[in-house]
């Protein structure tokens, strides 16, 4: 795919990086490079201006409380508005965990701190007294990326979606958005939010390619991406799903007994 360039904006890489989220950017870069797509990654942090027309794909990872507050403040400037504009104009976006929470309308932490979000997603998050921790499997309903997503969640926030966005998928094993309504993540135009890390994209190549395709379509006329040899990715996906099922699926006590 000569002459094709994907412009990625990695937001707050040194602050929002708690659970190996960098792996998502590595996956995007590699999967483009293997197809001969040139990738430019710009790393934007606190105080850096954001031009909404300069990027095709945005990524923001999760962070610890302190970092999340710094980022929340920075996003409340015109940067948040620029990010919303880019998504309205068709840019793709992936946000994980803490980043996902900040792109919603608000996050009220368990300790009572109120973090306003940029309102890209019609979603509100409230902190809980326990954390949802463990392997997750989600049936992804995103058009063009239907299938099972595997990952690991670790969050105290309970996120509820409003009518302005839809979930990324249904929880098969794990807790997802809030542990109650079986939804996980959210989708608005080509922007995704999710609690899954692992890293998410390397073991879920279908979703990685969906993001790359949507991002490129912003500037190029493309039907599909050339396929890659995903043997190893698929094996890793199968293995993770098997472990998740053993940990959280039915008959788990029996399985554990048998494993001894």
């Amino acid at each position, binding site marked *: 795919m000569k002459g094709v360039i994907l412009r990625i904006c990695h937001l707050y890489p040194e602050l929002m*990086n708690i659970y190996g989220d960098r792996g998502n950017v590595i996956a995007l870069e590699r999967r483009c490079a293997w197809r001969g797509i040139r990738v430019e990654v710009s790393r934007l942090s606190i105080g850096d201006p954001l031009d909404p027309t300069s990027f095709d794909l945005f990524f923001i990872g999760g962070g*610890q409380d302190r970092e999340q507050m710094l980022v929340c403040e920075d996003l409340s400037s015109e940067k948040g508005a620029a990010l919303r504009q880019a998504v309205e104009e068709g840019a793709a976006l992936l946000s994980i965990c803490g980043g996902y929470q900040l792109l919603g309308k608000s996050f009220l932490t368990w300790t009572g701190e109120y973090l306003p979000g940029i309102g890209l997603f019609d979603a509100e998050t409230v902190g809980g007294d326990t954390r949802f921790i463990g392997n997750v499997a989600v049936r992804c309903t995103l058009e063009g990326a239907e299938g099972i997503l595997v990952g*690991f969640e670790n969050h105290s926030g309970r996120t509820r979606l409003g009518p302005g966005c839809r979930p990324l998928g249904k929880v098969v094993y794990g807790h997802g958005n809030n542990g109650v309504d079986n939804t996980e993540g959210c989708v608005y135009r080509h922007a995704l939010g999710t609690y899954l890390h692992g890293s998410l994209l390397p*073991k879920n190549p279908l979703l990685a390619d969906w993001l790359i395709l949507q991002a490129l379509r912003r500037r190029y006329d493309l039907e599909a991406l050339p396929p890659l040899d995903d043997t190893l990715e698929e094996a890793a996906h199968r293995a993770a799903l098997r472990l998740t099922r053993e940990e959280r699926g039915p008959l788990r006590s029996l399985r554990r007994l048998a494993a001894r």
Partner: protein
Amino acid sequence: MDIRLALALAAGKAATAASRRLGLGAGSNFPGKVVLRLHPRATEKIASRLARGCVLVTGTNGKTTTSNLLAAMFRQAGLRPVHNRVGANLISGITAALAQASDLSGKPGGDIGLFEVDEATLPEAVRRLRPGLVIITNLFRDQLDRYGELETLAHKMDSALGEMESGSAVLLNADDPLVACLGASSAASLYYFGIECEEVGEGVLRHAADSKHCRECGSPLDFAVHFFGHMGKYSCPLCGTSRPRPHFIAERVGLKGTLGSTVTLTTPAWKTTLELNIPGLYNVHNLLAAAGGAYLLGLDEEMVRRGVEGYVTAFGRGERLPVEGRNIFLVLSKNPTGFNEVIRTVREEGSDLVVLAALNDRVADGRDVSWIWDVDFEELAPLPRVLVATGTRAWDMALRMKYAGLDPARLEVRENLRDALRTALSRTAEGETVYALTTYTATLELRRLLTRLGAAPGLWEER
């Protein structure tokens, strides 16, 4: 004589004997649990009778090596440490070590307690053991699913130091901004260790760095030099907070790959050059922590020197074990910063290497393996002739290496550790080395496997 304590200790000793016979290892927490169930205050009872009190060593990386180095120095000084040296570092493991070392009246057979303590267990350990010295090696992100966020952990540790009595001492890593700021509210005297040799530093901050912001005012720290992770010489441009001046200093460091390093060590009273036979800059920190601790407890230069030079590598921390005419270089690699340093050490061994990478996701390893994406495996990728990925998360490990740039043709995946070891050995010529980089439980498993092959002494047979 306290009958209840005697009963608890008898049961604990029986449990230890039984778990050894069953091959569960002497250091398992089970005997300690038995003792505590029968006598909840057994830990305090025995510890309070240690003539020279207790020393606690905690931090993310380096606990085992630091406390084993310190134990070696203690022995040179004629002390008899009671030591949880196999790394069972929760209250139950410490109690098991105390019970094993004492008679039925609760009189300990040693004169000083030397315990490595799990970071999250520090508050309880300080309350129960009333240590005269606490050493904190470093704080890195590790097992977020178990410990929670680093900030919360640092806060808990700081409160624990606040409970220490005046006359006691705390020895902190000056190069770690997250550790150096601890203990401000403690009645204990604060001491610091650090590296002053800037040539061993790196120009850039690694991806795995955790603490890059000033703990006082939140603005980004300026680093004059990075050693590894977020270790370095730093200062805050806004509020002026800076790295404390260390009392125990590595002035000159010459790294010699997997063989170790030459270190010129300075204390307030003396200066000496030592040959350290354990690899990597992280072990220079461990040496400083141990030597500083020894100094603060009144040991002299000769005892420190002899302790270091006669040091036998702690189990699985850079051990070289002979198997079938080949060597296994076994090194625990359990979190991003530790792993990066191991890779840096292995890189000095050249290329065309046989690497065995074992990634487990059991509770003691941390269930979440996302952290492998924070390791700079890109620097390992050009080295292997073959990389055998194994462990419960073998496929995650293999995938990480593919995305790090390793040709999939050089990748072998064997979920079973025994198969993985066979495959690695079969690809290694006589006299060559297999570099085994293993997470915590994988280190234990591989060590057990090698013991069965006759390559390594059993855990409780050492020394």
